[in-house]
């Protein structure tokens, strides 16, 4: 099944491969980094990424807190 995103302007062989690559990367950027999220439900099949998403909410609050503390201190200086 050929992808509808494989629209390419063919120049030399090298360029064609790069443009396919670019097309894929642009698509990946949209599909992987954006879109609706049902928090805590995304499981991607590699152990290290698993842990990150499961621990997402915990990680968020600790980072936000660190940020708040620093901002607070800065305004005091």
């Amino acid at each position, binding site marked *: 099944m050929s992808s509808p*995103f494989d629209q390419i302007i063919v120049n030399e062989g090298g360029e064609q491969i790069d443009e396919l690559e670019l097309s894929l*990367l642009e698509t*990946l950027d949209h599909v992987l*980094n954006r879109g609706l999220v049902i928090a805590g439900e995304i499981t991607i099949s*590699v152990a290290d990424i698993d842990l*990150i998403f499961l621990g997402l909410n915990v990680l968020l609050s*600790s980072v936000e807190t660190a940020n708040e503390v620093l901002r607070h201190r800065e305004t005091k200086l």
Partner: protein
Amino acid sequence: MELSPENPRPAEPEIETSHVEEFVEQLSCVTSTLPSRINIDAQSVEQGLAKLVLTLIEFIRRLLEKQAVRRMEGGDLSPEQIEELGLALMRLEAKLQELKTQFGLADEDLNLDLGPIGRLI
């Protein structure tokens, strides 16, 4: 449903640039935390935890660096204090580098992608 002559059906996405290689390079960075393999064994789990912990430390380390530079700019540190602070931060940076190597992690590995809220660093 909402399509009409004034509201045409969208074409397939087109991607256009005059600098293909440049963007391939940059977009590879953006999707660099893409896992490329399945590896659900003990070593990966350990590495996953290490990543999480080291990223937090790295984040804090960078905050400290910024704070130090700020204080230095602010003029309220003596030359001796600046030297001491600098040395301490140097050692912290080196230590973290060591830990990264021990766990076989590269710099990009520590840039957690927190989904819609963006990257950590």
